């Protein structure tokens, strides 16, 4: 490829150096500047530009614990709440017991899997998940029994283990706690599928045994009026592999914190996300990779499409490479595709590195728009407008869908995406 000077037409780069979509620069820094001046990306974390090591703004110093009193109701001025529409989320932030008729749980698992429950204080409950915000602490407190699904050591579960969580009434409050555990060298896929209407507040903790291979797929296919807050934490064992895939399509407000840390060395952990936000929807994902031990690998990729005047998405990706995490290899990326005017995507990659002895640590963010020129190009080749939009969106999001590796889910998500695109046209 030749390196010629940029050609410009009316001040816009048009020549061969032109990037794929204006603004699609693969750089978080640029994006944060555009979307949110306060989201000054920095290696100190939380917008502090001084080179702190586990300083006040560091992710390492984030409040965690089980005492509701330590987590007052947020005002919206807090760093971790400033993007969130708190009025809408309020129904899941109050210290309120579950409405017993709010949500139905259906578990389907083969016989080699043990399904039981864990009350407060019963291990392994709370051995992985420490509530890190108001939503998580009230869910933890008000979920008397946690659903406990256990895959014994050396067991390879052939079929995905499903938990179908169906909201039965709009605004019906549910506090949920799910503990997933895979023993040493076990192999399993867990699917958590959320549908219906509810004010759902759900914690999920995942204990991945040494040498185990675990995939957790969390599907947010709520009705339009549902509210969902959740914290999904995993601890990944020695030489284990862990993959978390979050797919958020439905719901009025969805706010998920997905996090993992390591128990030892030699693990590979990944988090993927796919979201599609329509007018009025707020979809927020926060990821936190805690490189707390040496020689582990992490990869985070979240991709989202936004369509409609008030469609809103947030991705905040924290990666902390602690002093002891030598030999870490880490990467995180968020990409957004804006399909119509008025939509807004915030994207904040935060990387804190406390040791220089690492394999790699990268982060990227880009937000681009599908504009008139893309549409014109495809239509000029005979492709009708509707199909052109589908082609682009499907192509863009397919990278995440392919990570699911459960064909039935992949197919049904393709259908959902086509329906999402239809909604806007009508």
């Amino acid at each position, binding site marked *: *490829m*030749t390196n*010629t000077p940029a*050609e410009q*037409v009316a001040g816009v780069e*048009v*020549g*061969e150096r*032109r*990037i*794929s*979509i204006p603004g*699609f620069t693969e750089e978080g820094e640029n994006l944060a500047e555009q979307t949110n001046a306060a989201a000054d990306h920095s290696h100190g974390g939380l917008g502090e530009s001084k080179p702190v090591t586990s300083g006040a703004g560091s992710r390492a110093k984030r409040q965690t614990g089980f005492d509701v009193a330590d987590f007052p109701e947020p005002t919206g001025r807090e760093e971790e709440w400033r993007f969130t529409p708190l009025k809408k989320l309020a129904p899941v932030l109050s210290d309120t017991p579950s409405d017993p008729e709010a949500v139905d749980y259906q578990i389907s698992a083969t016989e080699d899997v043990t399904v039981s429950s864990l009350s407060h204080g019963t291990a392994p409950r709370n051995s992985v998940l420490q509530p890190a915000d108001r939503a998580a602490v009230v869910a933890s407190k008000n979920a008397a029994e946690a659903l406990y699904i256990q895959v014994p050591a050396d067991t390879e579960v052939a079929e995905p283990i499903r938990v179908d969580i169906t909201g039965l009434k709009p605004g019906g409050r549910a506090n949920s706690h799910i503990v997933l555990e895979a023993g040493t060298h076990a192999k399993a896929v867990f699917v958590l599928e959320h549908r219906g209407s509810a004010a759902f507040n759900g914690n999920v903790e995942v204990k991945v045994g040494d040498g185990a291979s675990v995939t957790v797929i969390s599907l947010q296919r709520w009705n339009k009026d549902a509210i969902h807050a959740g914290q999904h934490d995993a601890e990944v064992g020695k030489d284990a592999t862990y993959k978390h895939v979050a797919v958020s399509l439905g719901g009025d407000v969805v706010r998920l914190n997905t996090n993992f840390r390591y128990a030892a060395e030699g693990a590979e952990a990944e988090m993927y996300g796919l979201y599609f936000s329509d007018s009025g929807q707020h979809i927020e994902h926060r990821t936190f990779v805690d490189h707390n031990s040496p020689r582990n690998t992490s990869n985070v990729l979240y991709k989202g499409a936004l369509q409609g005047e008030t469609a809103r998405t947030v991705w905040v990706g924290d990666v902390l490479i602690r002093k002891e995490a030598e030999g870490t290899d880490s990467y995180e990326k968020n990409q957004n*595709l804006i399909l119509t005017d008025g939509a807004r995507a915030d994207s904040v990659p935060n990387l804190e590195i406390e040791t220089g002895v690492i394999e790699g640590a990268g982060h990227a963010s880009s937000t*681009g728009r599908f504009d*008139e*020129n*893309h549409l*014109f*190009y*495809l*239509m*000029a*080749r*005979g*492709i*009708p*407008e509707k*199909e052109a939009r589908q*082609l*682009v*969106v*499907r*192509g*863009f*999001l*397919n*990278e995440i869908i392919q990570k699911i590796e459960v064909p039935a889910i992949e197919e049904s998500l393709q259908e959902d995406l086509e329906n999402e695109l239809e909604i806007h046209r009508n």
Partner: protein
Amino acid sequence: MSTLEIKDLHVSIETEQGSKEILKGVSLTINSGEIHAIMGPNGSGKSTLAATIAGHPRYEVTSGSITLDGEDVLEMEVDERAQAGLFLAMQYPVEVPGVTMTNFLRTAKTALDGEAPKIRTWTKEVKDAMEKLRIDADFANRNVNEGFSGGEKKRVEILQLELFKPKFAVLDETDSGLDIDALRVVSEGVNRAHQENNMGTLLITHYTRILNYIKPDYVHVFVDGKVAEQGGPELADELEANGYDRFLAQVSA
């Protein structure tokens, strides 16, 4: 035999200073198998003509007509124009994120023909066409135009021209930014499409260089949004020798 007929075409664009007329009465008739070169200085409206034929929303036709075998092209949507057999090889092909070349070519071919091409013959056809245009095979797996150099993008435009087999092609400065080898390869592609499909061609260019490879039947000189003069290939030779000064002098006089 098909005919693309442009009659007294007036086209404006919206600018910050209001509406600005770019084409001021263009008339042109192209038949199947004919090659028409449109030459002219920068800013004379050549690319506006190309984009208007393809239906770019930025260009507003204020009067005049474009017909393809009597059918009103201006009434057609952009995709319908392509389906009717019009093709625009763009000066600045757009990069389309998330869509591979393979997927794009098959989707477009299906839309143009109204049915999906037969997988085996289509795959071979694409492969052969890419080889002839010296496009590396792994481009098929890359996203449309993403990270392609200027020359690569132009080859990919001509690849589409060969695969889609339009009745009429408008080549908007396809020669710009090409080195001599690429220019030859691209020109051969256009000539193949011309011979094999009896394609009518509107070749828009600023330079006469490409006319050494693609021989026009007619040459039209475009100045200030109108055809200032037309003739045979000899007109291009005169432009090569004397430039556009003679025509520009007419305008300012």
